[in-house]
């Protein structure tokens, strides 16, 4: 197998052979059973108890975490010798996706599995792993991750919590952490502090260490069934052996944890979107106005069709990313450093999964409220709760603004290090598009979704054009140009999403699988509208960077590159909406 495509960001510069892309249709029987187990657990044990969780019954939350441990849901990424199952990343994605329906509990689960267990797997010493992982994986211990402080959220490395070394090698920590998930009942907390106020470092802190306490529960907009509190450290003594990773390398622990956490948050958004489309489709089929089910109205079909296509896109790109990480880690078990390296390799894709996933989810949940009308605004229906619960996703695990900076930022950094051939590709493109006529590119001859294939190739050129111009215009100062970086991020997100969706739909068409027509409709709809967004972002970015003749030349080139004939998206949305109503939701198998 080709190995070049297992490099992060390579999809922007190369054509990915369809066969290399992982899709939900390629799940094994085992994967499907994992989804079923997770679904049954959530349906039988968590959803009936959501109200008790919302009343902050943390004993119940603890019991549910233990149940999740019994089923193996906490150990997907943990080596067997520490009580885990050491499964592929697709398995982790599936568990996260199917836990998502329980919103509040999903956050509790994420605090445990993604934010506490994972950093110990990646960076823990043998001793630390043996001490903490079996309990955490079994759900006997509850975990948390304390990075943020009241004065440092996005700017997490500016934390004020201090660690001071004692004569006996132990550490004394003092400071106050803020907004800590599971804070109210966690036993093991990954705490970030600065050694001598300078060297950012991670520590494993037990709640029972003297001087550790949780503050009051925050009064939140949503996810009331998850605990969020400050964590206070008042001259807490932490044993010498509880430094996680290296002193002064806390940022590595923090960022690598988030790399994978973001990807899993993206996965959760798929589950949330799917649930809401099911609710919306069923409600629209049953609610009558003017003597007709509201599902028969074009305005409602527009919403359902759009919810369907956008969910298809995030699902496609997130599964593709899981496949990329698994391919990079293929063959046997790996030490924490190798796994961390693989997560880092696909950090761009993880940020895309986070931003695209959380924004599609919020779109879907907003339209779900709208389809429910007045009932969407009252608490008798889940639509209202979902809407509030999901809002935080755009804020934590790195705000979407921060992630948008990271997406082009990381690509540029790799390009400058020579790891990614971005700069030569942008140069070649410049010569091509500024030449009077663009050589028409030859495409594959499969005869399926050909227009979309051409459109996606054009998106890549546009991304390179904008990014190339930005690098040329601003050089080192590019990081100060956040608006241009955001536009670029949006183009990159739409490109990766479009390509993932189109490749998946081609798979479905070629294999003649069930409902290939729905795959095709979703992909065509998404790519068509992505083209409009890409054009808009590119124009705004180019106009911000250049003017006069240069701008005119670039805009002319943009027009030539991005020649995409619009399709009848009304018909496509109707088809998807009708399928969602007939089948009771977002169902593709």
């Amino acid at each position: 197998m080709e190995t070049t495509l297992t490099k992060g960001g390579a999809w922007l510069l190369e054509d990915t052979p369809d066969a290399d892309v992982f899709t939900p249709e390629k799940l094994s029987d085992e994967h499907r059973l994992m989804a079923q187990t997770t679904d049954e657990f959530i349906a039988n044990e968590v959803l009936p108890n959501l109200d008790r969780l919302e009343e902050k019954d943390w004993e119940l939350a603890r019991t549910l975490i233990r149940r999740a441990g019994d089923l193996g849901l906490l150990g997907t990424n943990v080596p067997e010798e520490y009580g885990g199952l050491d499964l592929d990343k697709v398995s982790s994605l599936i568990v996260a996706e199917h836990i998502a329906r329980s919103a509040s509990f999903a956050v509790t689960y994420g605090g445990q599995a993604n934010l506490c267990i994972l950093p110990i797997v990646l960076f823990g010493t043998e001793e630390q792993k043996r001490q903490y992982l079996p309990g955490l994986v079994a759900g006997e211990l509850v975990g948390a991750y304390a990075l943020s402080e009241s004065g440092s959220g996005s700017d997490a490395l500016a934390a004020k919590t201090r660690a001071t070394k004692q004569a006996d090698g132990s550490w004394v920590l003092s400071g106050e952490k803020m907004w800590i998930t599971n804070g109210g009942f966690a036993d093991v907390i990954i705490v970030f502090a600065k050694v001598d106020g300078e060297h950012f470092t991670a520590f494993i802190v037990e709640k029972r260490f003297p001087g550790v306490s949780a503050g009051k529960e925050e009064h939140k907009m949503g996810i009331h069934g998850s605990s969020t509190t400050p964590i206070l450290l008042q001259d807490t003594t932490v044993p010498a052996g509880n430094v996680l990773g290296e002193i002064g390398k806390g940022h590595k622990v923090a960022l690598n944890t988030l790399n994978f956490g973001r990807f899993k948050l993206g996965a959760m958004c798929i589950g949330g979107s799917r649930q809401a489309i099911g609710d919306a489709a069923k409600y629209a089929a049953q609610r009558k106005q003017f003597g007709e089910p509201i599902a028969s109205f074009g305005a409602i079909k527009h919403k359902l069709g759009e919810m369907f296509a956008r969910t298809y896109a995030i699902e496609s790109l997130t599964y593709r990313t899981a496949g990329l990480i698994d391919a990079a880690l293929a063959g046997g078990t790996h030490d924490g450093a190798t796994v961390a390296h693989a997560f880092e390799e696909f950090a761009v894709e993880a940020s895309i999964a986070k931003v695209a996933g959380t924004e599609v989810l919020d779109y879907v949940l907003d339209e779900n409220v709208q389809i429910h009308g007045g009932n969407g605004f009252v608490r008798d229906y889940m639509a209202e709760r979902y809407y509030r619960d999901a809002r935080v996703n755009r804020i934590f695990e790195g705000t979407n603004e921060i992630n948008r900076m990271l997406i082009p930022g990381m690509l540029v950094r790799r390009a400058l290090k020579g790891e990614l051939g971005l700069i030569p590709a942008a140069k070649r493109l410049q010569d091509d598009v500024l030449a009077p006529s663009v050589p028409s590119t030859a495409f594959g001859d499969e005869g399926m979704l050909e227009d979309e294939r051409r459109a996606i190739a054009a998106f890549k050129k546009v991304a390179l054009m904008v990014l190339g111009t930005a690098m040329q215009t601003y050089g080192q100062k590019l990081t100060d140009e956040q608006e241009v970086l955001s536009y670029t991020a949006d183009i990159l997100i739409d490109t990766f999403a479009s390509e993932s969706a189109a490749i998946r739909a081609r798979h479905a068409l070629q294999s003649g699988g069930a409902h290939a027509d729905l795959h095709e409709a979703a992909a065509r709809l998404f790519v068509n509208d992505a083209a409009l967004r890409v054009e808009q972002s590119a124009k705004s970015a180019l106009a911000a960077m250049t003017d006069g003749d240069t701008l005119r030349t670039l805009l002319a080139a943009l027009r030539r590159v991005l020649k995409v004939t619009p399709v009848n998206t009304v018909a496509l949305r109707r088809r998807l909406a009708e399928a969602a109503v007939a089948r009771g939701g977002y169902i593709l198998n």
Partner: protein
Amino acid sequence: MKIAVCIKQVPTREWQPRLRDDKTWIREADVSYEMNEPDAYALEEALRLREKHGGEVVVCSAGPARVQQVIREALARGADRAIHVEDDSLAAADAFVSAGALASAMADETFDLVLTGLQSDDQGHGQTGVVLAERLGIPHSTIIMEVQIDPSTSSGQAGSLRVKRELEGGWFQWIAMPLPALLTIQSGINQLRYATLKGIMAAKKKEIRKASLPAGLQPSQQIVALAMPARSKQTHLIGGSAGEAAKELVRLLRDEARAL
């Protein structure tokens, strides 16, 4: 104890049935499948009996290749191995053919106890278990709510069991039976366990023996036509005095609507 559990794969309950053009079966291309519900309880009962009395649990299923899905699920929940009578023609087979197919593959195994679900969620004849018992030449009992095995029973020896049958109108019957025997299990008699992720991975290594359909098995019945139930609304006015009407309403709710 050597226990067999017969499992059928049926369309999921959420699926909105759609008929094939010839109206003699459903459109299979549209369907997603799951384990027949009473069969899941039969499997759970078998796993519990194995935990109490030792032995092994063997899943038996007759159907096309796709039924591997529920076989894998049963193995993931804890069954030890499986027998799959594989043939495309079994997709819509009647009880007679299914039972014949299962009997031919199970005959040599000499099971102490065979459990099936009470009926299937798709065709719902409630006959497969009964016919299978006849084909295997063992006694059977239907609609079982509880199973107690005589503690002195051990594998290979003639033993006995007591079972609780559900009768109509809230009545039950306890009967004693010799082993080997076949029981058809009612839904809800125990609490189903989940397939743990560990169980799911372990199931990959468990044996699934393939058997082929014995020759000469002819269906004994034929589906001539299927129709979707027509949705109808009827208003039924109950006359008489308030007291009489209330009595009649309770009777109708209990005996006809079966809502009480």
